[in-house]
């Protein structure tokens, strides 16, 4: 029936509008819902999500040891040549030669933070860090060496 359809149409329209207004009205009256980060002011307490990808870092433990074997899987996985690994050969106490990294060069200015290097790494030597304050006055400062000076590979990582 035409009139019944018409009235139910108007009723449905009004009720859906009211539903929307109830939602926004809830947000208006509940100030704790505000999600704005007042960034430079709250720098001390700023907490970013764990999955935030800001730059590639190589974690070192307290003995200044990392787990990078210098396999260059990340260098091959990188789509735009951001990573360059320079390897060297250490002499182990048994007199054998062992492959190790000399410098893990990471060019932040070329990185698209695509996470492919982290996914390719077989020994979980690198990861993404939630750091985003990268501005510097000189572009060359964005080229970083990720392994700490004097660091060596952790025992038992092949």
């Amino acid at each position, binding site marked *: 029936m035409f009139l019944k359809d018409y009235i139910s149409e*108007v009723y449905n329209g009004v009720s859906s509008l009211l539903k929307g*207004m109830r939602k926004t009205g809830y*947000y*208006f009256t509940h100030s704790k*819902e*505000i999600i704005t980060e007042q960034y430079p002011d709250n720098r001390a307490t700023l907490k970013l999500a764990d999955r935030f990808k800001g730059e590639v870092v190589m974690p070192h433990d307290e003995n200044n040891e990392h787990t990078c074997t210098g396999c260059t899987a990340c260098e091959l996985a990188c789509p735009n040549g951001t990573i360059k690994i320079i390897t060297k050969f250490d002499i182990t106490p048994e007199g054998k030669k062992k492959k190790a990294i000399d410098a893990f060069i990471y060019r932040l200015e070329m990185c698209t933070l695509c996470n492919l290097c982290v996914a390719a790494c077989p020994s979980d030597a690198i990861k993404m860090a939630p750091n985003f304050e990268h501005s510097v006055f000189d572009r060359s400062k964005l080229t970083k060496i990720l392994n700490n000076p004097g660091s060596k590979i952790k025992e038992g990582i092949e």
Partner: protein
Amino acid sequence: MLSLESITKTTQDWLFAKFSPQIALTIECVIVILLAITLFAVLGLVLVLLERKVAARIQIRLGPNRVGPGGIFQTAADTLKLIMKEGLTPDAADKFLFNLAPFIVMMVAMLLLAPIAFAKNFQIWDINIGVLYISSVSSLSVIGILMAGWASNNKYSLLGAMRSGAQIVSYELSAGFAVLTIVVLTGSLQISDIVAAQENGWWLFKGHIPVIIAFVLYIIAVTAETNRAPFDLAEAESELTAGFHTEYSGMKFALFFLAEYINIFIVCAIGATLFLGGWMPLHIGHWENFNHVMDYIPSSVWFMVKTFFLIFLIMWFRWTFPRLRVDQLLNLEWKYLLPISLFNLLLVTVIAIMGWYF
């Protein structure tokens, strides 16, 4: 007690005692004009800030919070920026009409201020056709928009102006019918009579469901008439850059912007007068004590609270609903609002004749 009524009365008596009637009248006119301009400037600053704050809260943001405590000087800073900016006139524009249009829009907004009762016995011009005056003069604002759209010589402006014209001309009808329901109940077009009729209860409460329907229709129609979202097709940013004021900059743009907010204030003031009793305090039946407490609140405060409540309602609409398409806009008016308001008017007439309201 110091009230706006006594201030105006003393001023008038003093002026008429000091000067000849004609000079006194001229001085009064100048005072009224200055007050109106001051009101406009203050309203512009306050409403723009309010809108940005309301928008921010509804979108779970903070809004302007850097200029002054809580960002209260943000709009003053914006105004300063607009004053400093160059008012460009496009080369191919019709320069005379292009420069005239913002003033037309502003003048119409100013004329609409005349019959509004801001407080008890505080009104610029208690014209005997009050409500009709408002609906007739507000139909002039479309001319300013059409003029701006055509004179800019820009396709976006022209399209925006055409849309705005179609929208205002059609929504005027249901706004008029919603106003008529109250006129039928009161039996007068005069604003002071309409307010006086609500002494023992506002029409929204006295008039049963038909008046509530009329109130909803009025709010929808005036939202469309003031070109506010969800009916802001005339300046739809995503399709028409800025609609009819695309080519305007600096102070000429500021006038359009200001006129939009003044128009919102005026339609909300009229809505508050018609449905919420204007400056009348809230009285409930026979609760004498409660009514006495309510009487102590000045009438101007009542008026402003009601008006700002309606303004908030319209802002709430703006930040909740998405924009309508042109065909949806016209469907809403001609298939829903107009038939409902016609039927509603008939119902209210029956109620008024039978005396079924309180």
